[in-house]
């Protein structure tokens, strides 16, 4: 398919990338492109300039600190994360990334792209909210850190503003996590998903039920379903699921993810 005409730049540094994004209203960051290129084919997005983030060393790499904190570069691909010895410190990360789409997409698609596109059916937004990740955003004025809970603002919208870039995601230590989903075919698009972590109480973040992940807390996995019900969700309806069915799935999947987290 022929895309609309677009300019292309491949900056050599983060500073240069930020300058390009700030100087062009129609500029758009190109990460793995596994969403953006298709969105451009459909003309749902028509950027004037693609700023290719490949080759920016500042956005790469996975580091494990002595206290178990993981720092994941935004341009880390799903496959890199799945294979990373460091990332095994928080096993749920690789487990969930291995459920995204297929080998080809996992080889090119990035962790940063998944959270920044913030499609409500994506896997990583609820996961990052549940495990209490922190997002580092770079802009013309320097860096700032935003908790995942405040990062997702709306459908396809995040705290990353015009002229800014997500540079890395910081994940605290922990192992008691779970993830459950109902998908369109194995590893397909989620109809509903839930990520959970147990750290004293249970934190569950639900995907696909609202514009942004919905965070629900409960004292124990057995109380999660009631907590989800009390949240009064009114999920969107589409050809795959009615609103009522999605609300039902939310309860079931939240409980499943919470039990998995408790058992880890």
């Amino acid at each position, binding site marked *: 398919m*022929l895309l609309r005409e*677009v300019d292309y730049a491949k900056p050599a540094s983060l500073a240069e990338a930020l300058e390009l994004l700030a100087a062009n209203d129609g500029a758009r960051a190109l990460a793995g492109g596994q969403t953006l*290129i298709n969105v451009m084919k459909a003309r749902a997005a028509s950027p004037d300039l693609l700023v290719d983030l490949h080759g920016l060393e500042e956005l790469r790499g996975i580091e494990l600190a002595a206290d178990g904190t993981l720092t994941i570069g935004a341009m880390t691909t799903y496959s890199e994360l799945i294979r990373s010895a460091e990332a095994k410190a928080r096993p749920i990360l690789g487990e969930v990334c291995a459920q995204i789409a297929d080998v080809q*997409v996992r080889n*090119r698609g990035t962790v940063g792209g998944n959270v920044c596109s913030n499609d409500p059916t994506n896997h990583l937004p609820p996961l990052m909210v549940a495990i209490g990740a922190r997002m580092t955003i770079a802009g013309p004025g320097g860096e700032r850190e935003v908790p995942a809970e405040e990062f997702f603002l709306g459908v396809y919208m995040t705290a990353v503003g015009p002229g800014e870039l997500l540079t890395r995601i910081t994940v605290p230590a922990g192992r008691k996590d779970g993830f459950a989903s109902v998908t369109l075919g194995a590893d397909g698009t989620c109809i509903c998903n839930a990520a959970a972590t147990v750290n004293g109480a249970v934190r569950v973040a639900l995907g696909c039920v609202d514009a942004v992940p919905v965070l629900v807390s409960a004292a124990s996995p057995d109380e999660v379903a009631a907590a989800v019900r009390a949240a009064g969700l009114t999920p969107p309806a589409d050809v795959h699921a009615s609103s009522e069915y999605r609300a039902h799935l939310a309860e079931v999947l939240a409980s499943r993810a919470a039990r998995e987290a408790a058992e880890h």
Partner: protein
Amino acid sequence: MQIRVTVNGTTYERDVEPRKLLIHFLRDDLDLTGSHIGCDTGNCGACSVIVDGVLLKSCMLLAVQADGANVETVEGLAADEELTPLQRSFNEHHALQCGYCTPGMLMSATALLRENPSPSEAEIEKALQGNICRCTGYWNIVEAVKAVTR
């Protein structure tokens, strides 16, 4: 933009528009029509190629992004007209019907076997997940890959 891409060992220098997808560069500019366009939406995997050792769908990559890269397509598998064991196995196991998905299937299976010469059946299925066969001939495709595992 001027780009320089090595495909199956031959280096090509071409002037391309940034909007051109890698699959169109391969098929239209280089006349390498082995890689197919099945869906144009990133779903079917018929356009799968290996770029710098990594299996990708060439309809979700711009040609300019392959500047400086080493690309392998289905045409590069059978060096000197000699089929690879995997290609022979596809033939022997009747692993293609209409053949449209075959170039992508071969590249995905090639990438799998390089990384893991002894995959389980489940690992083969997972590795071919991104490739859709409209004839639904998956059984024989998996059998063909299984037959060349070590």
